[in-house]
């Protein structure tokens, strides 16, 4: 089983990753062999089995809606991580092109 180029491109666009031709080819192959392996799960009978998403057994964990001690200069620290900014605003590229 090998993924088609079209499938790889579709998945890459869902995952928001640009792939070059070489990467597309390699991923189609790698995913194919991994999917072949994981397809063996079809041998296991799972009729009437409840799926497990987590194993803690905890449900509805709540906490008081109270303010916590803030981290010193937290907003400045966060701002310093912005790749692009103007004053204290995060700057991003345009969402729409002029043609849209």
């Amino acid at each position: 089983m090998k993924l088609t180029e079209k499938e790889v491109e579709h998945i890459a666009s869902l995952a928001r990753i640009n792939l070059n031709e070489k990467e597309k080819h390699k991923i189609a192959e790698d995913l194919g062999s991994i999917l072949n392996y994981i397809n063996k799960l079809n041998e296991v009978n799972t009729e009437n089995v409840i799926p497990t998403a987590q194993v803690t057994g905890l449900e509805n964990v709540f906490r008081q809606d109270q303010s916590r001690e803030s981290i010193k200069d937290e907003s400045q620290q966060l701002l310093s991580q912005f790749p692009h900014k103007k004053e204290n605003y995060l700057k991003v590229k345009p969402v729409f092109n002029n043609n849209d």
Partner: protein
Amino acid sequence: MTNLKNLTIKSVRDGITNREFTAEELRIEFLKLIKKEDDNLNSYLSVFDASTFPIVDQAQSDIAGVPCAIKDNILIEGTITTAASKILKNYVATYDATVIKKLKSRGAVFLGKTNLDEFAMGTTTENSAFGVTHNPHDKSRVAGGSSGGSAAAVASGLAVYALGSDTGGSIRAPASFCGVVGLKPTYGCVSRHGLIAMASSLDQIGPITKTVEDAAIVMNTIAGHDPLDSTTSSKEGYDYTKSLNKSIKGLKIGVAKEFFKEGLNPEVASLVEKAITHLQSLGAHIDYVSLPLTDYALAVYYIIVPSEISANLARFDGIRYGHSSKEAGSLLETYLNSRAEGFGPEPKRRIMLGTYVLSAGYYDAYYLKAQKVRTLVKQSFDKVFEKFDAIVGPTMPTIAPKIGEFETPLSAYLADIYTVQANLAGLPAISVPCGKIDIDGKNLPAGLQIIGKHFDEEKILQIAHAYESTR
């Protein structure tokens, strides 16, 4: 000064208490040693100079003043945390992980951050964007992964102990390959707040140490409930050292027979069998048990993990922090290019796989099916634990592989066969060294894995300690 390389947490505390050295002197010596020796290993990604974290002299605890290393996917406020990815190359953490807060409050001394597979995805550290970590026992071999830097640093004496994280064996695999002790705690035992998430339903932070006792000492500091991680248990104030010296006479230990099938290196098998015979000689009742889903568990793991990865790694988008592409004219291109430039091959592969199995039309066939088989895996352990106190077997099927030995992603994934089930079922598991194999004139270690019941770290530490102290 004493031989730094053999220091344990216990012996450092004795040394400080008896005024043989101070915490500051010790740190200076360790920093010198790292500078001198780590070029050959690449166990550290960053090292903190003495001015980064002042030593709290009056700190009194069983880890105060003891130099440690932290896997570089755990945040320490104000310092660079990369997760061994180019996408976070210059990322400065804005807060402390809960485990770091706990260590700081008890006077821990941080030496630096250790290498790992990118975002902890791997079994060899070959997936690090900053180079492989070499095995201290043979530089042509890998240290294991993903916590390879932590295990190599401890094994080579460049840290007294270290923290790692384990999603499918990432503490136990490098511990086995490097000949040190590695404990993956029960899911929910140690807070994940401040651990860069890979697969959130499986990730746990745990200790990598030279002795079983040290692992228990570290657990006493890092375990416990955290309001910032709602999956943590409310169990508090537990003493993990209290049963270390108890006899294991009469304990019922199951040998996982599926762990001794095809694929296990015969020399590793014979060391593990010898260790099991030793446990028997200490009075434990040994019998074979079955974990019939062993082969399938790996398939479950490689569906659930990429699925959770594809969601967790969506946050790396080049907008708020991390690498942002200079080749972007629109918002969409910022996402597409930043992720293309920032992620290495393994995160890309896993994000793609996860996106595929979760995409429309495939969800039921893969993800839902995997979650159902996960239930069966958990039940297979519950059944064994009705009659047994612990399960033993090899940690890894082989000794540390040569650098480049795994030629395909799948061949590397298969090395996790004995470790992933403990994560899927949320169980605690420890790897302890059980001897060495002579190959090419080098001695390469193997590990004995002991898996316990939920929140029964006490029992596996007890068994591991009994083994370690008498073999």
